[in-house]
């Protein structure tokens, strides 16, 4: 009797396992056919010189020649790579800080909250794909901005502040980064739509009784921000950080990706392009791995 029941349980578990595999089978097939195979092929091609004949292609094994080429000979690749990685770190940090700040503001009660939230989410829809790429090299806007900057440099507050801080001469390079972000606040704002919503949903799950208790104990708003809000939504920081880094790396106006596409499509150097994209991919993976490990050590799980 007991044995029979056990068998039946196993039968159900087995059936569930089979059903589970059936449900995810589209993913498995797609993953194997359209991801694993091309991935290994491109890994193989990155060690090859690909010769395109009429109707055929045959990779010729050249060892690490492609890798040596992109790092030693190619004049642009290493420069673009380091620049892009540096920019990614600075901008991702800026996006996280900005979206956290905006989420904190939007979490308060005021009139027109829904409207403001809708406006902050708008770039997720409008500034994506090709439009983003066109936005950045819009020469008309660039010349206009230059003109405005030239004519108003004496009266602008940020410029005056910049000058004061520059002449003070403390930590000039760190300031430069901050100034760059402030100048490009539009880029930061349009890239933080989803992050704001994720932070906001995290903020709304914190029960207000915690803040009330802290308030009664004499905790100031500033203290409760650090002691309650931060630990409670620390897992959101991890999610947002990973999302932001990936989003930044795959933007269509990313210079490394532009370079890869140029090498692949215009110069028809498939092997070299594969090597470039593999190096880029591994770097991103390592960066995400290390940084999310560091963040996840500090994440606090309430439940």
């Amino acid at each position, binding site marked *: 009797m007991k044995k029979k029941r056990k068998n039946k349980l196993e039968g159900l578990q087995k059936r569930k396992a089979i059903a589970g595999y059936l449900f995810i089978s589209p993913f498995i097939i797609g*993953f194997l056919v*359209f991801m694993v195979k091309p991935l290994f092929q491109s890994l193989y091609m990155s060690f090859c010189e690909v010769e395109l004949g009429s109707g055929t292609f045959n990779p010729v094994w050249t060892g690490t020649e492609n890798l040596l080429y992109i790092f030693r000979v190619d004049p642009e690749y290493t420069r673009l790579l380091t620049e892009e990685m540096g920019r990614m770190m600075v901008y991702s940090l800026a996006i996280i800080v900005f979206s956290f700040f905006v989420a904190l503001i939007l979490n308060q009660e005021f009139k027109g909250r829904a409207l403001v939230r809708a406006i902050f989410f708008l770039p997720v829809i409008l500034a994506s794909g090709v439009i983003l790429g066109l936005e950045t090299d819009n020469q008309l806007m660039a010349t206009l901005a230059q003109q405005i900057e030239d004519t108003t440099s004496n009266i602008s507050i940020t410029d005056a502040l910049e000058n004061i801080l520059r002449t003070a001469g403390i930590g000039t390079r760190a300031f430069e980064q901050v100034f760059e972000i402030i100048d490009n606040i539009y880029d930061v704002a349009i890239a933080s739509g989803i992050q704001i919503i994720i932070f906001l949903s995290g903020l709304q799950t914190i029960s207000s009784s915690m803040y009330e208790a802290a308030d009664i104990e004499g905790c100031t708003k500033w203290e409760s921000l650090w002691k309650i809000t931060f630990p409670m939504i620390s897992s959101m920081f991890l999610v947002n950080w990973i999302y932001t880094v990936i989003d930044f790396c795959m933007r269509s106006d990313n210079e490394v990706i532009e370079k890869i596409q140029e090498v692949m499509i215009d110069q028809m150097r498939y092997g070299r392009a*594969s090597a470039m994209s593999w190096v880029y991919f591994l770097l991103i993976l390592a960066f995400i791995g290390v940084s999310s490990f560091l963040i996840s050590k500090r994440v606090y799980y309430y439940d």
Partner: protein
Amino acid sequence: MTKKNKEYKSIKPLAQYTYWERNKLSGGYLLKRQVTDVVVSICRFVLLFGMCFLILQPIFNKISVSFMTEQDLFNPIVINIPEHFTTENYKMASAIMEYPKALVNSLIISLTIALLQIAVCTLVGYGFARFNFPLKKFWFACVILVILIPPQTIASSLHLHFRFFDILGIFKMITGDTVNLRGSKLPYYLMSAGCMGLKNGLYIYMIRQFFRNIPEDMEEAAYVDGCGMLKTFLRIMLPESKPIVTSCFLFAFVWQWTDGFYSKMFLGSTKLVSTSLARLVDSLGTFIQRMTGIKTTVSIAYSNCILATGTLMIILPLIVLYLFAQRAFVESISSSGIKM
């Protein structure tokens, strides 16, 4: 007696005190608090207004530019309101992009692709959320990997993969040659059916998160009543998951609409709004040359004006969609409770 009376008087209802008396009673706290409230809300208004303006300004700018003639663009007095109002730019951009045709094409492709992707992703997400099977963690790690891998990494080999397409050598056996699928729409539909389309890993992740939050009792009740696995999914769980599926569908639609990379790679021969927008500036010169027969160089200002018009024409359907489905876009993300 009088003293007692006075004491009694001092606790009269709060409404009978004047504002300043109440303030005095609270030791200045009332006034302080009200002043901070006002200051905070003014600061908040200024900040939010500034940031909203920052986001909306490019759109307003595009709208005003799109109605200007070339003459207005070079007129330093004209900034926002065009002096010579014209709709010529729209006609021009529409003619270059073959707008009506591209619009219909984009609509059909985005709709079908989004439907296919979300249908498959919902199945997969449900499978990951609700069933226990061996190697589950491994396959889910693969989903995360799909989110992480830039599509550009595998672009070149996918290129070749579809150029010499074959399933386990079957086609080669029958016809003696591999099938060239470049230039047809089939590869992209195949990829979408295999969850490898644009950002599909993300949709799987979001849908899985959503299903994990639904209590399991409902399914168990269905199983007890003799409902099969697929029927339970279709009848019980799918109606529950309406919000997340709608929003993922909207995302898939919108991102497919504006996508340049996959469209250029797989749907290059089909006229789409996204790809024709990307080519708009390049084709402007040749278009004008063909119309007038004179070789001219187009000024940067004018080409940007046309570009702004084209961009507006492309995002207009999206704006309309967003106006109606704003809640679906925003609220599903918060409801899915994304966590690590």
